[in-house]
Protein backbone atom coordinates (compact mmCIF):
# COMPACT_ATOMS: atom_id res chain seq x y z
CA UNK A 1 0.00 0.00 0.00
CA UNK A 2 1.45 3.40 -0.88
CA UNK A 3 1.55 6.14 1.73
CA UNK A 4 -0.74 8.98 0.69
CA UNK A 5 -0.50 11.20 3.74
CA UNK A 6 1.30 11.41 7.03
CA UNK A 7 1.48 14.09 9.69
CA UNK A 8 4.50 16.35 9.51
CA UNK A 9 7.53 15.41 11.61
CA UNK A 10 7.65 19.10 12.45
CA UNK A 11 4.93 18.56 15.02
CA UNK A 12 4.56 16.26 18.00
CA UNK A 13 1.68 13.79 18.44
CA UNK A 14 0.22 15.80 21.32
CA UNK A 15 -3.51 16.56 20.96
CA UNK A 16 -4.09 20.28 20.54
CA UNK A 17 -6.25 22.31 22.90
CA UNK A 18 -7.58 24.69 20.24
CA UNK A 19 -11.35 25.23 19.90
CA UNK A 20 -13.25 23.61 17.03
CA UNK A 21 -12.91 25.71 13.87
CA UNK A 22 -9.90 27.66 15.10
CA UNK A 23 -7.26 28.05 12.40
CA UNK A 24 -4.24 27.92 14.75
CA UNK A 25 -3.93 24.18 14.02
CA UNK A 26 -3.56 24.80 10.29
CA UNK A 27 -0.91 27.47 10.87
CA UNK A 28 1.04 25.22 13.27
CA UNK A 29 1.08 22.50 10.66
CA UNK A 30 2.29 24.84 7.92
CA UNK A 31 5.16 26.00 10.10
CA UNK A 32 6.03 22.40 10.99
CA UNK A 33 5.96 21.36 7.32
CA UNK A 34 8.17 24.28 6.29
CA UNK A 35 10.78 23.50 8.97
CA UNK A 36 10.93 19.91 7.72
CA UNK A 37 10.98 20.84 4.03
CA UNK A 38 13.80 23.32 4.57
CA UNK A 39 15.67 20.62 6.51
CA UNK A 40 16.11 22.84 9.56
CA UNK A 41 13.85 21.21 12.18
CA UNK A 42 16.83 19.84 14.12
CA UNK A 43 18.39 23.26 14.47
CA UNK A 44 15.17 25.17 15.07
CA UNK A 45 14.33 26.93 18.32
CA UNK A 46 10.83 28.35 18.64
CA UNK A 47 9.42 30.88 21.09
CA UNK A 48 5.79 30.50 22.16
CA UNK A 49 3.69 33.50 23.28
CA UNK A 50 1.15 34.09 25.99
CA UNK A 51 -2.31 33.73 24.52
CA UNK A 52 -4.07 30.90 22.71
CA UNK A 53 -0.76 29.55 21.40
CA UNK A 54 0.82 29.48 24.87
CA UNK A 55 1.10 25.69 24.68
CA UNK A 56 2.74 25.75 21.23
CA UNK A 57 5.91 24.52 22.96
CA UNK A 58 4.19 21.14 23.28
CA UNK A 59 3.19 21.00 19.61
CA UNK A 60 6.31 21.97 17.65
CA UNK A 61 8.79 19.13 17.44
CA UNK A 62 11.85 21.27 18.10
CA UNK A 63 13.47 23.05 21.04
CA UNK A 64 11.11 25.68 22.45
CA UNK A 65 10.94 28.58 24.90
CA UNK A 66 7.73 29.82 26.47
CA UNK A 67 8.07 33.60 26.79
CA UNK A 68 6.37 36.20 28.99
CA UNK A 69 3.43 38.03 27.39
CA UNK A 70 4.65 40.00 24.35
CA UNK A 71 8.34 39.37 25.04
CA UNK A 72 8.94 36.60 22.48
CA UNK A 73 10.92 38.88 20.11
CA UNK A 74 13.29 39.81 22.97
CA UNK A 75 13.69 36.15 23.94
CA UNK A 76 14.30 35.22 20.30
CA UNK A 77 16.92 38.01 20.09
CA UNK A 78 18.77 36.48 23.05
CA UNK A 79 18.72 33.03 21.47
CA UNK A 80 19.61 34.02 17.90
CA UNK A 81 22.46 36.36 18.87
CA UNK A 82 24.32 33.63 20.72
CA UNK A 83 23.27 30.82 18.34
CA UNK A 84 23.41 32.56 14.93
CA UNK A 85 23.57 29.27 13.01
CA UNK A 86 20.31 27.99 14.47
CA UNK A 87 16.88 28.80 13.06
CA UNK A 88 14.83 30.87 15.49
CA UNK A 89 11.16 31.82 15.25
CA UNK A 90 8.44 33.37 17.38
CA UNK A 91 4.78 32.38 17.14
CA UNK A 92 2.58 35.19 18.48
CA UNK A 93 -1.01 36.32 18.52
CA UNK A 94 -2.35 39.84 18.13
CA UNK A 95 -2.82 40.59 21.85
CA UNK A 96 0.72 39.40 22.48
CA UNK A 97 2.43 41.08 19.52
CA UNK A 98 0.31 44.13 18.69
CA UNK A 99 -0.54 45.23 22.23
CA UNK A 100 1.67 44.31 25.18
CA UNK A 101 4.60 43.32 22.96
CA UNK A 102 4.46 46.22 20.51
CA UNK A 103 7.80 47.60 21.69
CA UNK A 104 9.56 44.25 21.48
CA UNK A 105 8.41 43.47 17.92
CA UNK A 106 9.18 46.98 16.64
CA UNK A 107 12.69 46.94 18.07
CA UNK A 108 13.48 43.40 16.97
CA UNK A 109 12.54 44.54 13.45
CA UNK A 110 14.41 47.82 13.98
CA UNK A 111 17.63 45.99 14.86
CA UNK A 112 17.07 43.67 11.89
CA UNK A 113 17.20 40.61 14.13
CA UNK A 114 17.68 37.59 11.93
CA UNK A 115 14.69 35.52 13.03
CA UNK A 116 11.18 34.82 11.77
CA UNK A 117 7.89 35.84 13.36
CA UNK A 118 4.62 34.02 12.70
CA UNK A 119 1.95 36.55 13.65
CA UNK A 120 -1.57 35.17 14.01
CA UNK A 121 -4.13 37.96 13.77
CA UNK A 122 -7.66 36.92 14.76
CA UNK A 123 -8.76 40.39 15.86
CA UNK A 124 -9.46 39.36 19.46
CA UNK A 125 -7.98 38.05 22.72
CA UNK A 126 -9.01 34.40 22.50
CA UNK A 127 -7.37 32.77 25.53
CA UNK A 128 -8.66 35.25 28.10
CA UNK A 129 -12.21 35.04 26.82
CA UNK A 130 -12.76 37.34 23.86
CA UNK A 131 -11.60 40.81 24.90
CA UNK A 132 -10.91 43.63 22.44
CA UNK A 133 -7.44 43.65 20.84
CA UNK A 134 -5.66 46.52 19.02
CA UNK A 135 -6.60 44.58 15.88
CA UNK A 136 -10.35 44.27 16.66
CA UNK A 137 -12.38 45.84 13.85
CA UNK A 138 -14.51 48.97 14.26
CA UNK A 139 -17.97 47.92 15.39
CA UNK A 140 -16.78 44.43 16.30
CA UNK A 141 -18.21 43.25 19.61
CA UNK A 142 -15.84 41.86 22.21
CA UNK A 143 -16.29 41.37 25.96
CA UNK A 144 -14.49 44.68 26.60
CA UNK A 145 -16.14 46.41 23.65
CA UNK A 146 -19.69 45.15 24.30
CA UNK A 147 -21.26 47.89 22.16
CA UNK A 148 -18.80 47.33 19.31
CA UNK A 149 -15.32 48.86 19.01
CA UNK A 150 -15.60 52.63 18.98
CA UNK A 151 -13.00 54.61 17.05
CA UNK A 152 -13.50 57.67 19.24
CA UNK A 153 -12.31 55.96 22.41
CA UNK A 154 -10.19 53.03 21.18
CA UNK A 155 -8.72 54.23 17.88
CA UNK A 156 -8.54 52.41 14.60
CA UNK A 157 -7.36 48.78 14.35
CA UNK A 158 -3.57 48.57 14.21
CA UNK A 159 -2.11 47.46 10.89
CA UNK A 160 1.04 45.70 12.02
CA UNK A 161 2.38 44.64 8.61
CA UNK A 162 2.04 48.14 7.17
CA UNK A 163 3.69 49.59 10.28
CA UNK A 164 6.61 47.15 10.33
CA UNK A 165 7.13 47.56 6.58
CA UNK A 166 8.29 51.12 7.28
CA UNK A 167 11.20 49.77 9.31
CA UNK A 168 14.40 49.20 7.37
CA UNK A 169 15.38 46.06 9.31
CA UNK A 170 12.11 44.26 8.52
CA UNK A 171 13.20 42.73 5.22
CA UNK A 172 10.27 40.38 4.71
CA UNK A 173 6.70 41.41 5.57
CA UNK A 174 3.66 39.65 4.12
CA UNK A 175 -0.01 39.37 5.10
CA UNK A 176 -1.85 36.17 4.21
CA UNK A 177 -5.01 34.33 5.24
CA UNK A 178 -5.97 30.75 6.04
CA UNK A 179 -9.72 31.04 5.56
CA UNK A 180 -9.67 29.04 2.31
CA UNK A 181 -7.46 26.51 0.53
CA UNK A 182 -5.88 29.03 -1.84
CA UNK A 183 -5.03 31.21 1.14
CA UNK A 184 -3.52 28.29 3.04
CA UNK A 185 -1.28 27.48 0.04
CA UNK A 186 -0.13 31.09 -0.19
CA UNK A 187 0.43 31.18 3.57
CA UNK A 188 2.76 28.20 3.38
CA UNK A 189 4.72 29.86 0.58
CA UNK A 190 5.05 33.05 2.60
CA UNK A 191 6.19 31.17 5.70
CA UNK A 192 8.79 29.33 3.64
CA UNK A 193 10.06 32.58 2.13
CA UNK A 194 10.30 34.20 5.54
CA UNK A 195 12.39 31.31 6.88
CA UNK A 196 14.53 31.35 3.74
CA UNK A 197 15.23 35.05 4.34
CA UNK A 198 16.51 34.07 7.79
CA UNK A 199 18.61 31.22 6.36
CA UNK A 200 20.12 33.71 3.92
CA UNK A 201 21.02 35.95 6.87
CA UNK A 202 19.05 38.87 5.49
CA UNK A 203 17.27 40.02 8.66
CA UNK A 204 13.89 40.11 10.26
CA UNK A 205 10.88 38.49 8.59
CA UNK A 206 7.25 38.42 9.62
CA UNK A 207 4.19 36.68 8.19
CA UNK A 208 0.89 38.11 9.42
CA UNK A 209 -1.79 35.46 9.09
CA UNK A 210 -5.47 36.39 9.28
CA UNK A 211 -7.08 33.72 11.39
CA UNK A 212 -10.50 32.88 12.82
CA UNK A 213 -11.74 32.73 16.39
CA UNK A 214 -15.25 31.19 16.23
CA UNK A 215 -15.48 31.01 20.03
CA UNK A 216 -14.39 34.59 20.62
CA UNK A 217 -16.43 35.93 17.72
CA UNK A 218 -19.55 33.98 18.76
CA UNK A 219 -19.85 32.29 15.36
CA UNK A 220 -19.86 28.80 13.91
CA UNK A 221 -16.59 27.74 12.26
CA UNK A 222 -18.16 28.16 8.81
CA UNK A 223 -19.60 31.60 9.64
CA UNK A 224 -16.24 32.71 10.95
CA UNK A 225 -14.51 31.84 7.66
CA UNK A 226 -16.84 34.11 5.71
CA UNK A 227 -16.69 36.79 8.41
CA UNK A 228 -12.90 36.86 8.01
CA UNK A 229 -13.22 37.14 4.24
CA UNK A 230 -15.90 39.83 4.29
CA UNK A 231 -14.67 41.94 7.20
CA UNK A 232 -10.98 41.39 7.92
CA UNK A 233 -9.54 41.24 4.39
CA UNK A 234 -11.08 44.59 3.31
CA UNK A 235 -9.40 46.29 6.28
CA UNK A 236 -6.25 44.16 6.35
CA UNK A 237 -5.30 43.84 2.66
CA UNK A 238 -3.41 40.71 1.73
CA UNK A 239 -0.09 40.81 -0.02
CA UNK A 240 3.61 41.31 0.33
CA UNK A 241 4.77 44.59 1.84
CA UNK A 242 8.51 43.99 1.75
CA UNK A 243 10.79 41.30 0.42
CA UNK A 244 14.36 40.96 -0.77
CA UNK A 245 14.57 40.69 -4.59
CA UNK A 246 14.88 36.88 -4.70
CA UNK A 247 11.92 36.34 -2.32
CA UNK A 248 9.47 38.43 -4.34
Amino acid sequence: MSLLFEPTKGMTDKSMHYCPGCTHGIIHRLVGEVLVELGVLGKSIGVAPVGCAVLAYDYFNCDMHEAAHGRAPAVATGIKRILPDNVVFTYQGDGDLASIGAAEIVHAAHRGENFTTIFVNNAIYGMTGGQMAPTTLIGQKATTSPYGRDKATTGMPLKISEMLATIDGAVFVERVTVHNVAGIRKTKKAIKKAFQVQLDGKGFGIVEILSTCPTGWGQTPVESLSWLENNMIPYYPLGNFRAPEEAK
Partner: protein
Amino acid sequence: MAKILMKGNEAIAEAAIRAGCDCFFGYPITPQNEVPEYMAKHMPKTGGVFVQAESEVAAINMVYGAAGAGFRVMTSTSSPGMALKQEGISYLVGAELPSVIVNISRGGPGLGSIQPSQSDYFQVTRGGGNGDYRIVVFAPSSIQEAVDLTIKSFDIADYYRNPVILLGDGMIGQMMEPVEFNLSGKTNLPKKDWATTGTNGERKPNIINSLALASEDLERHNYKLQKKYDEMEEKEVMHETYKMDDAEIVLVAYGTTSRITKNAIDSLRENGIKAGLIRPITLWPFPNKAFEEIPKTAKSILVVEMSMGQMIDDVKIANEGRLPIHFYGRAGGMIPSPEEIANKAKEIVGGAK
Protein backbone atom coordinates in the same frame (compact mmCIF):
# COMPACT_ATOMS: atom_id res chain seq x y z
CA MET B 1 49.05 39.48 39.70
CA ALA B 2 49.45 43.23 39.94
CA LYS B 3 46.42 45.16 41.06
CA ILE B 4 44.71 47.55 38.65
CA LEU B 5 42.89 50.73 39.62
CA MET B 6 39.34 50.42 38.32
CA LYS B 7 35.95 52.03 38.66
CA GLY B 8 33.40 49.72 40.29
CA ASN B 9 31.10 49.42 37.30
CA GLU B 10 33.99 48.65 34.94
CA ALA B 11 35.51 46.17 37.38
CA ILE B 12 32.19 44.31 37.60
CA ALA B 13 32.00 44.19 33.79
CA GLU B 14 35.59 42.94 33.49
CA ALA B 15 34.97 40.34 36.21
CA ALA B 16 31.96 39.07 34.28
CA ILE B 17 33.99 38.71 31.09
CA ARG B 18 36.72 36.86 32.97
CA ALA B 19 34.06 34.60 34.51
CA GLY B 20 33.06 33.56 30.99
CA CYS B 21 30.04 35.78 30.45
CA ASP B 22 28.94 35.05 26.86
CA CYS B 23 26.17 37.65 26.53
CA PHE B 24 25.31 41.01 28.00
CA PHE B 25 21.96 42.72 27.50
CA GLY B 26 21.37 46.14 29.02
CA TYR B 27 19.75 49.53 28.82
CA PRO B 28 21.22 52.93 29.77
CA ILE B 29 20.45 54.19 33.26
CA THR B 30 22.59 56.14 35.71
CA PRO B 31 24.63 55.24 37.79
CA GLN B 32 25.45 51.92 36.07
CA ASN B 33 26.19 53.12 32.52
CA GLU B 34 29.86 52.12 32.64
CA VAL B 35 28.81 48.46 32.76
CA PRO B 36 27.08 48.36 29.34
CA GLU B 37 29.67 50.79 27.94
CA TYR B 38 32.51 48.50 29.02
CA MET B 39 30.66 45.47 27.66
CA ALA B 40 29.97 47.19 24.32
CA LYS B 41 33.70 47.85 24.00
CA HIS B 42 35.09 44.53 25.21
CA MET B 43 32.54 41.76 24.52
CA PRO B 44 33.07 41.76 20.74
CA LYS B 45 36.82 41.21 21.28
CA THR B 46 36.16 37.82 22.89
CA GLY B 47 33.34 36.80 20.55
CA GLY B 48 30.72 37.68 23.14
CA VAL B 49 27.31 39.19 22.49
CA PHE B 50 26.40 42.75 23.47
CA VAL B 51 22.94 44.11 22.74
CA GLN B 52 21.60 47.45 23.88
CA ALA B 53 17.96 46.53 24.41
CA GLU B 54 15.01 48.86 23.86
CA SER B 55 14.10 48.67 27.55
CA GLU B 56 14.97 46.84 30.75
CA VAL B 57 11.94 44.64 30.07
CA ALA B 58 13.42 43.56 26.75
CA ALA B 59 16.92 43.18 28.23
CA ILE B 60 15.81 40.72 30.91
CA ASN B 61 13.87 38.73 28.30
CA MET B 62 16.96 38.60 26.08
CA VAL B 63 18.68 37.18 29.17
CA TYR B 64 15.89 34.57 29.31
CA GLY B 65 16.56 33.62 25.68
CA ALA B 66 20.34 33.36 25.87
CA ALA B 67 20.32 31.71 29.32
CA GLY B 68 17.81 29.17 28.01
CA ALA B 69 20.21 28.44 25.17
CA GLY B 70 22.73 27.46 27.87
CA PHE B 71 25.09 30.43 27.92
CA ARG B 72 26.47 32.63 30.71
CA VAL B 73 24.46 35.83 30.65
CA MET B 74 24.44 39.10 32.55
CA THR B 75 22.36 42.25 32.63
CA SER B 76 22.85 45.37 34.73
CA THR B 77 20.63 48.25 35.68
CA SER B 78 19.73 50.70 38.43
CA SER B 79 16.69 50.85 40.69
CA PRO B 80 13.82 51.98 38.40
CA GLY B 81 15.21 49.66 35.72
CA MET B 82 15.33 46.87 38.30
CA ALA B 83 11.63 47.44 38.87
CA LEU B 84 11.03 46.85 35.16
CA LYS B 85 13.03 43.62 35.25
CA GLN B 86 10.87 42.03 37.94
CA GLU B 87 8.57 40.25 35.50
CA GLY B 88 11.50 38.66 33.71
CA ILE B 89 13.23 37.73 36.97
CA SER B 90 10.17 35.77 38.08
CA TYR B 91 10.14 33.93 34.73
CA LEU B 92 13.89 33.19 35.00
CA VAL B 93 13.33 31.58 38.39
CA GLY B 94 10.26 29.70 37.19
CA ALA B 95 12.06 28.35 34.13
CA GLU B 96 15.21 27.71 36.23
CA LEU B 97 17.58 29.80 34.14
CA PRO B 98 20.98 30.80 35.53
CA SER B 99 21.80 34.46 35.04
CA VAL B 100 23.48 37.37 36.81
CA ILE B 101 21.59 40.61 37.43
CA VAL B 102 23.48 43.66 38.65
CA ASN B 103 21.62 46.50 40.37
CA ILE B 104 23.74 49.60 41.03
CA SER B 105 21.00 51.20 43.06
CA ARG B 106 19.93 54.83 43.39
CA GLY B 107 17.40 56.78 45.42
CA GLY B 108 13.66 56.29 45.08
CA PRO B 109 10.71 55.92 44.96
CA GLY B 110 9.88 56.74 41.37
CA LEU B 111 12.55 58.43 39.34
CA GLY B 112 14.14 59.37 42.68
CA SER B 113 17.73 60.48 42.29
CA ILE B 114 20.96 59.22 40.77
CA GLN B 115 22.80 59.29 44.11
CA PRO B 116 23.72 56.16 46.10
CA SER B 117 20.92 54.60 48.10
CA GLN B 118 20.02 51.31 49.73
CA SER B 119 16.29 51.59 49.31
CA ASP B 120 16.11 48.60 46.94
CA TYR B 121 16.60 46.09 49.78
CA PHE B 122 12.98 44.98 49.69
CA GLN B 123 12.99 44.87 45.89
CA VAL B 124 15.97 42.52 45.71
CA THR B 125 15.30 40.34 48.75
CA ARG B 126 11.50 40.14 48.55
CA GLY B 127 11.23 40.57 44.82
CA GLY B 128 8.67 42.55 42.90
CA GLY B 129 7.99 39.60 40.66
CA ASN B 130 5.09 37.24 41.18
CA GLY B 131 5.19 33.84 42.80
CA ASP B 132 7.18 31.98 45.44
CA TYR B 133 10.78 32.66 44.63
CA ARG B 134 14.13 33.39 46.20
CA ILE B 135 17.37 34.71 44.78
CA VAL B 136 20.83 34.86 46.30
CA VAL B 137 21.67 38.57 46.71
CA PHE B 138 25.28 39.65 47.14
CA ALA B 139 26.03 43.10 48.57
CA PRO B 140 29.73 43.95 48.17
CA SER B 141 31.32 46.73 50.21
CA SER B 142 34.46 47.22 48.11
CA ILE B 143 35.38 47.03 44.45
CA GLN B 144 37.52 43.95 45.10
CA GLU B 145 34.59 42.25 46.78
CA ALA B 146 32.32 43.28 43.88
CA VAL B 147 34.76 41.58 41.50
CA ASP B 148 35.01 38.41 43.59
CA LEU B 149 31.25 38.19 44.06
CA THR B 150 30.55 38.82 40.36
CA ILE B 151 32.72 35.84 39.48
CA LYS B 152 31.10 33.77 42.23
CA SER B 153 27.62 34.81 41.03
CA PHE B 154 28.04 33.00 37.70
CA ASP B 155 28.99 29.76 39.47
CA ILE B 156 26.17 30.01 42.00
CA ALA B 157 23.68 30.75 39.19
CA ASP B 158 24.83 27.73 37.17
CA TYR B 159 24.91 25.45 40.21
CA TYR B 160 21.35 26.20 41.28
CA ARG B 161 19.89 27.09 37.86
CA ASN B 162 18.63 30.30 39.39
CA PRO B 163 19.35 34.00 38.84
CA VAL B 164 21.76 35.75 41.22
CA ILE B 165 21.57 39.45 42.08
CA LEU B 166 24.59 41.64 42.76
CA LEU B 167 23.46 44.74 44.62
CA GLY B 168 25.83 47.68 44.78
CA ASP B 169 24.83 51.22 45.60
CA GLY B 170 25.93 54.08 43.35
CA MET B 171 29.07 54.47 45.48
CA ILE B 172 30.26 50.94 44.64
CA GLY B 173 29.56 51.58 40.97
CA GLN B 174 31.29 54.93 40.76
CA MET B 175 34.34 54.85 43.03
CA MET B 176 37.77 53.55 42.04
CA GLU B 177 39.86 51.03 43.99
CA PRO B 178 42.71 48.68 43.15
CA VAL B 179 41.51 45.23 42.16
CA GLU B 180 42.80 41.86 41.02
CA PHE B 181 40.86 39.16 39.21
CA ASN B 182 40.99 35.71 40.74
CA LEU B 183 38.93 33.07 38.97
CA SER B 184 37.10 30.51 41.04
CA GLY B 185 38.24 27.56 38.96
CA LYS B 186 34.99 25.82 39.90
CA THR B 187 34.58 22.81 37.66
CA ASN B 188 31.92 20.62 39.28
CA LEU B 189 29.03 22.56 37.79
CA PRO B 190 26.17 20.56 36.28
CA LYS B 191 26.03 20.08 32.50
CA LYS B 192 23.40 22.20 30.76
CA ASP B 193 21.71 19.31 29.00
CA TRP B 194 18.40 21.16 29.30
CA ALA B 195 19.49 24.02 27.02
CA THR B 196 17.78 24.79 23.71
CA THR B 197 20.52 24.38 21.13
CA GLY B 198 18.52 22.43 18.54
CA THR B 199 17.69 18.73 18.81
CA ASN B 200 19.73 17.80 15.70
CA GLY B 201 17.16 15.03 15.48
CA GLU B 202 19.07 13.22 18.23
CA ARG B 203 16.97 13.91 21.32
CA LYS B 204 13.53 15.01 22.42
CA PRO B 205 12.92 18.77 22.30
CA ASN B 206 14.13 20.78 25.28
CA ILE B 207 11.53 23.22 26.57
CA ILE B 208 12.25 26.35 28.61
CA ASN B 209 9.03 27.11 30.42
CA SER B 210 7.49 28.42 33.63
CA LEU B 211 3.89 27.38 32.90
CA ALA B 212 2.32 24.43 34.70
CA LEU B 213 -1.43 24.59 34.30
CA ALA B 214 -2.19 21.55 36.44
CA SER B 215 -2.15 22.54 40.12
CA GLU B 216 -0.41 19.34 41.21
CA ASP B 217 2.34 19.94 38.62
CA LEU B 218 2.94 23.50 39.74
CA GLU B 219 2.96 22.49 43.40
CA ARG B 220 5.54 19.82 42.60
CA HIS B 221 7.60 22.50 40.83
CA ASN B 222 7.22 24.85 43.82
CA TYR B 223 8.55 22.11 46.13
CA LYS B 224 11.46 21.46 43.77
CA LEU B 225 12.35 25.17 43.77
CA GLN B 226 11.95 25.35 47.55
CA LYS B 227 14.47 22.55 47.94
CA LYS B 228 16.98 24.73 46.08
CA TYR B 229 16.19 27.73 48.28
CA ASP B 230 16.71 25.51 51.36
CA GLU B 231 20.12 24.47 50.03
CA MET B 232 21.02 28.10 49.33
CA GLU B 233 20.10 29.02 52.92
CA GLU B 234 22.26 26.22 54.18
CA LYS B 235 25.32 26.80 51.98
CA GLU B 236 25.44 30.31 50.59
CA VAL B 237 25.14 32.63 53.61
CA MET B 238 28.04 35.09 53.84
CA HIS B 239 28.72 37.73 56.46
CA GLU B 240 31.59 39.52 58.14
CA THR B 241 31.91 40.52 61.79
CA TYR B 242 34.10 43.35 63.07
CA LYS B 243 35.14 43.80 66.71
CA MET B 244 32.21 41.75 67.93
CA ASP B 245 33.95 39.76 70.72
CA ASP B 246 33.16 42.17 73.55
CA ALA B 247 30.62 44.43 71.82
CA GLU B 248 28.03 46.13 74.00
CA ILE B 249 26.31 47.66 70.99
CA VAL B 250 26.02 45.74 67.71
CA LEU B 251 25.81 47.79 64.56
CA VAL B 252 24.38 46.14 61.45
CA ALA B 253 25.14 47.56 58.02
CA TYR B 254 25.92 46.34 54.49
CA GLY B 255 27.59 47.67 51.36
CA THR B 256 28.97 51.22 51.44
CA THR B 257 27.25 51.94 54.74
CA SER B 258 29.20 49.17 56.46
CA ARG B 259 32.49 50.93 55.65
CA ILE B 260 31.29 54.16 57.18
CA THR B 261 29.95 52.20 60.13
CA LYS B 262 33.39 50.62 60.70
CA ASN B 263 34.86 54.12 61.03
CA ALA B 264 32.11 54.99 63.50
CA ILE B 265 32.93 51.83 65.50
CA ASP B 266 36.63 52.74 65.69
CA SER B 267 35.81 56.21 66.96
CA LEU B 268 33.28 54.84 69.45
CA ARG B 269 35.93 52.47 70.83
CA GLU B 270 38.38 55.39 71.14
CA ASN B 271 35.69 56.97 73.30
CA GLY B 272 35.35 53.85 75.43
CA ILE B 273 32.19 52.48 73.85
CA LYS B 274 32.54 48.85 72.82
CA ALA B 275 30.85 48.72 69.45
CA GLY B 276 30.93 45.88 66.91
CA LEU B 277 29.59 45.20 63.45
CA ILE B 278 27.66 42.46 61.68
CA ARG B 279 27.91 42.98 57.92
CA PRO B 280 25.62 40.78 55.84
CA ILE B 281 27.36 40.00 52.52
CA THR B 282 24.40 37.95 51.32
CA LEU B 283 21.19 39.90 51.96
CA TRP B 284 19.36 36.72 51.06
CA PRO B 285 19.96 34.26 52.54
CA PHE B 286 20.30 36.55 55.57
CA PRO B 287 22.98 35.67 58.12
CA ASN B 288 20.56 34.77 60.93
CA LYS B 289 23.17 32.66 62.69
CA ALA B 290 25.42 35.68 63.21
CA PHE B 291 22.69 37.10 65.43
CA GLU B 292 22.48 33.91 67.50
CA GLU B 293 26.23 34.29 68.09
CA ILE B 294 26.04 37.86 69.40
CA PRO B 295 28.05 37.87 72.68
CA LYS B 296 26.33 38.19 76.07
CA THR B 297 27.98 41.61 76.50
CA ALA B 298 25.65 43.11 73.88
CA LYS B 299 22.78 45.23 75.17
CA SER B 300 21.36 46.64 71.93
CA ILE B 301 21.44 46.59 68.14
CA LEU B 302 21.71 49.60 65.83
CA VAL B 303 20.80 49.08 62.17
CA VAL B 304 22.33 51.62 59.79
CA GLU B 305 21.05 51.94 56.24
CA MET B 306 20.91 54.46 53.41
CA SER B 307 17.13 54.09 53.43
CA MET B 308 14.23 54.70 55.76
CA GLY B 309 14.71 51.21 57.17
CA GLN B 310 14.34 48.02 55.15
CA MET B 311 17.01 45.53 56.25
CA ILE B 312 15.83 46.25 59.80
CA ASP B 313 12.93 43.85 59.12
CA ASP B 314 15.39 40.99 58.57
CA VAL B 315 17.38 42.03 61.64
CA LYS B 316 14.17 41.80 63.67
CA ILE B 317 13.52 38.32 62.32
CA ALA B 318 17.11 37.23 63.03
CA ASN B 319 17.15 38.83 66.50
CA GLU B 320 14.01 36.94 67.57
CA GLY B 321 13.20 39.60 70.15
CA ARG B 322 16.43 39.11 72.15
CA LEU B 323 17.79 42.67 72.07
CA PRO B 324 16.22 46.09 71.55
CA ILE B 325 16.73 47.28 67.97
CA HIS B 326 17.40 50.90 66.98
CA PHE B 327 17.70 52.48 63.57
CA TYR B 328 19.70 55.22 61.92
CA GLY B 329 19.15 55.94 58.25
CA ARG B 330 19.74 58.61 55.65
CA ALA B 331 17.75 58.60 52.45
CA GLY B 332 17.44 60.22 49.05
CA GLY B 333 21.12 59.90 48.23
CA MET B 334 22.37 61.41 51.51
CA ILE B 335 25.30 59.46 52.95
CA PRO B 336 25.59 59.15 56.74
CA SER B 337 28.85 60.38 58.31
CA PRO B 338 30.75 58.30 60.89
CA GLU B 339 30.00 61.06 63.45
CA GLU B 340 26.24 60.83 62.90
CA ILE B 341 26.32 57.07 63.36
CA ALA B 342 28.57 57.31 66.43
CA ASN B 343 26.31 59.94 67.99
CA LYS B 344 23.29 57.72 67.50
CA ALA B 345 25.18 54.81 69.14
CA LYS B 346 26.21 57.06 72.06
CA GLU B 347 22.63 58.15 72.53
CA ILE B 348 21.56 54.48 72.73
CA VAL B 349 24.24 53.36 75.21
CA GLY B 350 23.40 56.21 77.54
CA GLY B 351 24.54 59.61 76.45
CA ALA B 352 27.90 60.94 75.36
CA LYS B 353 30.79 59.81 77.58
